[in-house]
Structures are given as structure tokens and as C-alpha cells.
């Protein structure tokens, strides 16, 4: 062994060739498209938007939620506190909350049991339903 890693047996120019294909000065078109790809990826990565939920579908899926969340004066037991108002809440927050219940980041046995059965789309739909309700 000459003290170098196995990879270095390949001429370094060969390894760099794909990179040169994108960055080479003579290849303006590829450089432009690479920039475009990076910009689009950046936009996707930083996008705070959520897949649109369907409130009509959410209404069906929220049927079991209503047993507690649509009952005025309903309280959580042990410890006792009122169940939160969901009408008019932000959809993105509701999705975050359901995901946290599902993962266990929010510790609540009943809500975990419900959220664990939900897909991401279910959460979006339910959130769209509650956030879209008009205040009576």
C-alpha cells in the first residue's frame, strides 16, 4: 500500500468530471439549470405551506372529535381542565398538534389513541374543517 485510500487509485479528474459537467465554464446551459434546480429545492425545503385539507372530508372524519370538542363545558378528567376550543383555530397548528399527539411529543393517552389512527391527509382534512368553521 502506498498509504493512500483505495479510492485515490482512480485519477481525481475522473471523480470530478460529473461536477465539471455542471460547473464547467463552457456549459452555461447546465449551470443555469443547476441554479434553477437549487432554487426550486430551496423553495420546497423552506415552504411552510401544507397540503390543502378538505373541510368536507374533515367534517366526516371529525365525527368522533365532536364527542368532546363540541360539548360545551366538557372537561378532561385527571387532571381536570376544560377541553380546548378548536373552532377558529389555525389549521397548521392543529396539524402540528395531532402529529405531536401521534408521535408522543404531546403526552395525552386519549388524543394519542385518536391521532395514531390518522394519516397525514386525515389530519389536514380535520384541521381544515375546524379552522374553516364560522363563529356562531
Amino acid at each position, binding site marked *: 500500500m502506498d498509504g493512500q485510500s483505495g479510492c485515490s487509485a482512480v485519477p481525481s479528474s475522473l471523480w470530478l468530471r460529473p461536477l465539471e459537467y455542471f460547473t464547467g465554464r463552457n456549459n452555461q446551459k447546465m449551470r443555469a439549470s443547476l441554479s434553477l434546480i437549487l432554487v426550486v429545492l430551496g423553495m420546497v425545503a423552506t415552504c411552510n405551506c401544507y397540503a390543502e385539507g378538505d373541510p368536507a372530508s374533515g367534517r366526516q372524519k371529525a365525527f368522533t372529535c365532536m364527542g368532546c370538542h363540541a360539548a360545551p363545558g366538557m372537561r378532561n378528567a385527571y387532571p381536570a381542565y376544560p377541553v380546548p*376550543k378548536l373552532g377558529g383555530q*389555525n389549521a397548521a397548528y392543529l396539524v402540528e398538534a395531532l402529529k405531536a399527539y401521534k408521535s408522543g411529543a404531546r403526552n395525552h393517552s386519549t388524543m394519542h389513541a385518536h391521532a395514531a389512527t390518522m394519516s397525514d391527509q386525515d389530519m389536514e382534512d380535520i384541521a381544515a374543517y375546524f379552522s374553516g*368553521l364560522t363563529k356562531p
Partner: protein
Amino acid sequence: MKRLVIISSLLGLVWTYSMAVAGGDVEAGKAKAQVCVSCHGTDGIGTQPQFPNLAGQHHDYMVRALQDYKSGARNNAIMKGFVANLSKADMQDLAAYYSTREAVLFTPKVE
């Protein structure tokens, strides 16, 4: 009879004191909410969709939420930092402030 009057007035004092503590102080809450407003707004309306609206939320639910953030039962990196130094009275006051903003939240009705 005299003893009964003294005992009942003492009980009354204790009761009003505990109510005041339990309910929190809206004005004190307003002052303490200065760090909350960048996300939850002065009016309790979230400044970004991922931040919850608080305006009109149940007082005791919000106290519970703050306690859970502090204990870790609710694991949220942002809120954890804010609640670390809150006392029980602080939580009561903050909940008093946001629960009494003009409500955007409501209990939905079964249609």
C-alpha cells in the same frame, strides 16, 4: 354566634383570595405577555399559521398547557424556553390575559 361570624368571614377572605390567585390578573398578564406577542399577537391571534390562536381559549386549558410545557409532557422546543421561568402565578396571569381577548376561538356545534 360571634365565633361563627369570625370563622365565616375568615373563610370568605380565604375564598376570595384563592379565587383571585386561581383566576389570575389580566393587567399583570398583559405585562408578562410581552415575550408571547411576537408569535401569539397582542390580541391572541397567531402571527403565523403554525402558532395557535389563544384569544378566547379556556383559561384553565392554557394554564395546563404551560404546565405541560414546563414539565415536558408537552415537548416543544420553542415553548420550553419561555415557560422555564414562569411561576404558577405567572401562568394564571398569562391565561387570564389571553382568555379575555376578543374571542376568535369557539366550541363548535355538531351539525
